[in-house]
Each structure stands twice: as structure tokens, then as C-alpha cells.
């Protein structure tokens, strides 16, 4: 058969298979790199994970210790950031989608996009200036606020996108029943977009859970369990940074273990996102 093909056709077939091969190879390398990273982290970190490691506080080198306080600190600061960032971000997103076609909405949207693209260390410096300096010390509060500032524009923009996907016919249906605009937004549009908004929220939480730079300036670190937001607070990411930059082999092993834990958490959040989005109508 091949001999009956014209020169043009043969050339087209070759180009086609070369291009298909290139795209497939790129796809393999993307997932391959991810799998290598995950595999290496697991290989390096798994052996150091123990109950003691998960619950204890850091101890001098050679005496064991763990990252229990860092897990708590990460949870407390992420929690605070979510408590502030989710409502503010979602409401801002509703505004942008439903009323944001004027100059004010356009400005807000532009600033949000800029903020999303801003390196997170700059947000750390900002919170350092407006919160840490007046308070006179680093604190869990400052860390949580920094994470909230990172979170708000992400949540706002994903919420806006999700709300824009709600068909206009649904809004009109509610308006035609005599529903005021705010009720249409509140009990028709928001529930219709809920699963998408939840996806955006969880992705934003996963993103801030992995932030290190803004916490270095704001929450600093702590060697103890700290339940108070006005004190310096440990976090998984800063703890990883400290262990990884330490001089001892034991510290490196603990950095790997903490990394494994963090990656595992983010993986769990991403899988949860998948499950939530699957339940769509």
C-alpha cells in the first residue's frame, strides 16, 4: 500500500507521527518528573516517620524529636487564613461576577491578577511591615494574615470564573419570580456554583499550605507547641527549610520526612477536590 502513496502523503504521515511522538514524550516527561519526585521523597522520608516524629517537638540533634508543633502551627495558620480568605475571597468573586463590569470591578480584577502573580515573599515583607513591626514580634497571627492575603485573590478569581459559568437563564428564572438581585446571587447562583467554588477554595488552601517565604518573615518558627496566635509559630514548611539547611544527616532525614508529610497532605487535598467536583449535576 505504502508504495501507492504520493510523496506528499508520505511526508504528511511522517510529520504526523513525529509530532504525535513529541507531544507524547513531553506528556511522559511531565508525569515522569512528578513520579520521580514523589518516589524519591517517599524513599528518603518514609523511614523517619514515626509516632514520635509526628507528635514530638524538635530536639537537639541526636535526641530524636519531631514536628508535632509544626503540624499544629501549619494547621492553625492555614485555618486562620481560610477563615479570613474564604469569605472575603468568595464575596469579592460574587461581586466581580455579578456586578463587576464597571471601572471599579475592572480595577479590582486587575489588582487581584497582579497580586496572584506577586512573589509570596513580597507579601511576607508587607505583613512584616504592617503587623510584625507594630507588634514588636513575629506571630502566628502575622503568618495567618500573610497566607490570607495570598489566598484572597486566588479564591476571588476562581469564584468569579465559576459564577460566570452559571447559565444566565437561571438568574432570569429567579428574577422573573420577583426575586431581588441579592437573593438571586445568594440562593440561586452561589449554590449552583458551589462545587466549583469549593474546588477553588481547596486548591487555594493547598497552595498556602506549601508557602515558606512569607512565613519566614511573619511567623518565624518555634521549638515548642504554641497554641497562641500572638506568639511566633512553627510551620511544616519553615521546619523543612531549617532541617534541610542544617549541617547534620539526621536533620536532612527529618526534612525529607516532613516533606513527605506535606506532599501527602497536598495530594490528599487535591484528591478531595476531585471527589467534590465529581458530584456535580
Amino acid at each position: 500500500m505504502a508504495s501507492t502513496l504520493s510523496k506528499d502523503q508520505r511526508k504528511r504521515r511522517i510529520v504526523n507521527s513525529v509530532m504525535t511522538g513529541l507531544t507524547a514524550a513531553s506528556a511522559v516527561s511531565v508525569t515522569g518528573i512528578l513520579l520521580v519526585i514523589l518516589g524519591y521523597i517517599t524513599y528518603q522520608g518514609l523511614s523517619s516517620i514515626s509516632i514520635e516524629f509526628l507528635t514530638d517537638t524538635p530536639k537537639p540533634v541526636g535526641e530524636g524529636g519531631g514536628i508535632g508543633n509544626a503540624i499544629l502551627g501549619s494547621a492553625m495558620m492555614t485555618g486562620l487564613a481560610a477563615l479570613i480568605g474564604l469569605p472575603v475571597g468568595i464575596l469579592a468573586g460574587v461581586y466581580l461576577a455579578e456586578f463587576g463590569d464597571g471601572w471599579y470591578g475592572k480595577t479590582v480584577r486587575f489588582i487581584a491578577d497582579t497580586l496572584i502573580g506577586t512573589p509570596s515573599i513580597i507579601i511576607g515583607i508587607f505583613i512584616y511591615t504592617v503587623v510584625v513591626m507594630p507588634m514588636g514580634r513575629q506571630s502566628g497571627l502575622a503568618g495567618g494574615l500573610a497566607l490570607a492575603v495570598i489566598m484572597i485573590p486566588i479564591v476571588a478569581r476562581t469564584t468569579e470564573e465559576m459564577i460566570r459559568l452559571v447559565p444566565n437563564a437561571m438568574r432570569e428564572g429567579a428574577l422573573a419570580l420577583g426575586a431581588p438581585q441579592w437573593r438571586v446571587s445568594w440562593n440561586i447562583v452561589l449554590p449552583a456554583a458551589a462545587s466549583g467554588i469549593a474546588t477553588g477554595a481547596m486548591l487555594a488552601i493547598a497552595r498556602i499550605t506549601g508557602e515558606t517565604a512569607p512565613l519566614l518573615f511573619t511567623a518565624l518558627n518555634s521549638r515548642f507547641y504554641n497554641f497562641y496566635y500572638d506568639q511566633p509559630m512553627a510551620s511544616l514548611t519553615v521546619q523543612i527549610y531549617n532541617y534541610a539547611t542544617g549541617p547534620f544527616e539526621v536533620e536532612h532525614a527529618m526534612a525529607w520526612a516532613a516533606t513527605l508529610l506535606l506532599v501527602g497532605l497536598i495530594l490528599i487535598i487535591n484528591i478531595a477536590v476531585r471527589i467534590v467536583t465529581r458530584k456535580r449535576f
Partner: protein
Amino acid sequence: MKPKISINNLDFFYGSDQALFDITLDIPENEIVAFIGPSGCGKSTFLRTLNRMNDTIPIASLRGEVLLDGENIYAPGTDVVALRRRVGMVFQKSNPFPKSIFDNVAYGIKINGIHSGKSDLADRVEKALHDAALWDEVKDRLNTSAFGLSGGQQQRLCIARALAVQPEVILMDEPASALDPIATQKIEELVVQLKQYYTIVIVTHNMQQAARVSDRTAFFMLGKLVEYNPTQRMFTNPDEKLTEDYITGRFG
């Protein structure tokens, strides 16, 4: 005849494009009025001026008046929310809310605070579903998603939703255009039955449908009202040559 709605010298614009030209017509109480005409003739735009649905389009503007029981609904200070409760609407594509069947019908009752207590709410929902000829098909699955219904059922659900707030006028924008013949027939029978309680304005592409259900028919073309007459006269002996040409299928 007592006009429920009187439209006087209505001009309508999308930005600088004029979509309706000097429309004047009366819609009598407890009658069915059909708007027919080729695509883009302005019949849907006109329908949407009757409950100020076009307010949601920022570039839209309008001249002239629309009187509901003698009061201009475009007068400054008109409560649009209250107006839309009196003038309900059913859309071309069924647009149930992402809620249960029960909650779809209950929504309008709740937001307008019509009901007195939970059992009254349930009674009103049941009545609206009865009136929309849907009750028997959904009575065992009221708490399931409205998206589980067929297209025809969804459209009757939207009609039930509109009836539940007890409007005086119901606007229907090609309510059967996306439905199969059997579902269409059900909607048409329903529309005729509803006439005794409501004033109904129905936009349709389907001329046989206009002939079957309506008392009066208005024929629009290029944003102008060509002819408005009792339906029987319109389809047997129209005043205008253009109407005859359209109805007999010579164009459109």
C-alpha cells in the same frame, strides 16, 4: 373588553439600534395573545418589556409606556420586584434551579413570603404542580433533583414555579420550542386551561400553535407590529397582504 396590559407607542433600543418601532396594542384580561413573526422580528424583546426583564441588559433603552391595570410600569419609582411577581414568565429553554422539585416550586413562594407556615407551603406547591399538570408524575419524587425530569416535565415545572407565586399575567417565550410533539400538546392544553385564571401572552415560532391556543394574534416583522386581530380572522382573512404571505408560508 378590559385591557389588562396596554402598550402605547413603544420604541425599544439596544444601544443605538432600534429593535421595536412605535408598538401600540392592548392585551385583554383572561385571554391568550400570541406573538408571531420571523426570527429577529422583536417579538421576544417585546415580551420582555412587559415584565421589565430587559432591565438586566445595560445598553437597552425604551420610549413610550406599558400600562398594567392602567399604571405605567416604567414610571419612576416602580418596584420591579413587585411587578415581576404580578407578571410571571416562562422561558424558551426550561431553566429549573439546581434544587429539588419541591424547592423549585417553593422558591418563589418563600422569597415573596406568600405562605403561612410549612403545611401551607406544601399545599401551595402541590396546587401549583396540579395546575401545571405535573403532580401525578412527580408526587413520589418531590425531593429529587429537578434535573432528573424530562425536558417537557422540566418546562411544566417552570410553569408550576411561575404559577406558585399567583401572578396575574404569564409571559411565555416559545415555551414548547425545544419539546417533542407530545410534550408540546400537553403544554398547549395547559395554556388553554390556565386562561380562566390568568392573562397569557405567548411568543411562538409555530403558527399552528398560535392558531390552536390563542384568542388574538399579533404579527411582528422587523420590529414593527404588522397586524393585530382575533386569531380566527388573522388565519382566515387577514387585513394585511404581508400577514397572509407569512401565514401561508410564502416567506419566513
